[in-house]
């Protein structure tokens, strides 16, 4: 069983990451809507993002916030909806966090640096 202090910390990180996500999602959507007004190909997108530190930094923060927030929520959902026990839900959350982190950062690398 996770101790009480860790529970409070996890809840706090869930809250902070949700605030970051709220900001990131709004910026992400606004940029998409603005950028594709006149139609945009994949090559044009990559031309703009490649080598951009602003894009790189923004999406790295986005990925980190997802890797914190989503696994916490997922652990909660499997416990409440499917009756999983805490060790199993924590393990799933850990694996999923790692997956999001690797896939997300790999995407950022692909769009900005590769």
């Amino acid at each position, binding site marked *: 069983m996770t101790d*009480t202090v860790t*529970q409070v910390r996890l*809840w*706090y990180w869930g809250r902070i990451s949700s605030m970051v996500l709220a900001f990131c999602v709004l910026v992400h959507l606004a940029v998409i809507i603005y950028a594709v007004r006149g139609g945009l190909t994949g090559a044009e997108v990559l031309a703009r993002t490649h080598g951009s530190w602003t894009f790189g930094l923004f999406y790295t923060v986005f990925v980190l916030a997802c890797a914190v927030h989503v696994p916490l929520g997922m652990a909660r959902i499997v*416990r409440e*909806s499917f009756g999983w026990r805490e060790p199993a839900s924590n393990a799933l959350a850990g694996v999923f966090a790692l997956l999001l982190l690797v896939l997300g950062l790999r995407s950022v690398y692909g769009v900005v640096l590769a």
Partner: protein
Amino acid sequence: MTTNLEVKVWRGKEEGGFVTYEVPRFDSQTVLDVVTHIQRHIDPGLSYRYACRVGMCGSCAMNVNGVARWTCRTHVAKVAPDNQLELAPLPNLPVVKDLVADMTEFFDKWARARGQFKGSKTRHDDFAMVEPGSPERRSADEGIECINCGVCYASCDVVTWRPDFLGPAALNRAWTLINDVRDVGQAERLLAVSGDAGCHACHTQGSCTERCPKHLAPTAAIAGLKHLSVTTLRRQK
């Protein structure tokens, strides 16, 4: 008024079924009046629980047409415009018999949330001075009128999903004591309500606040506990 009410009442324990009764409709009739009529005039074997009949004791709560309510102050006119009632024991609690729910777990959770007052003074000490307008006293005032009816607990989805969750009533009680400046068991209490099945398990859906017959806001009390647990943790770093 001469029409009859069609009343479906849960009979049995966890296993059982609804039995339909015809009950005469009266002016200003409450749901508790309906149940009492069934027991006294139709079926003396019906079990239900009540005491004060005036919204003070908190013992008559039931599920009325799918919604947990205190029945002594719920008028039939408000909940059954089509003269049909379905009465069941409170959800999220084991059934003792018919409309009687087993409140053991509900009150055990009050104890687990350290819902007992723990003072340091004796009868030989002077009265404690509590400023009525102080933020702590006002926060305590907002939650202190709880009558332990169990309506919030029965309406809470988190309790349904996670039966170990302490529930809105116990957490509301803990919040009123945390704001009691005379109490000396605060650290212990905060630890008890901040754990896995404590305040952080609440999703802030607000069913407890919407259904509370005393118009209390356990959701706000739980938010207060969440905030306090985080600020305490940061202070201790």
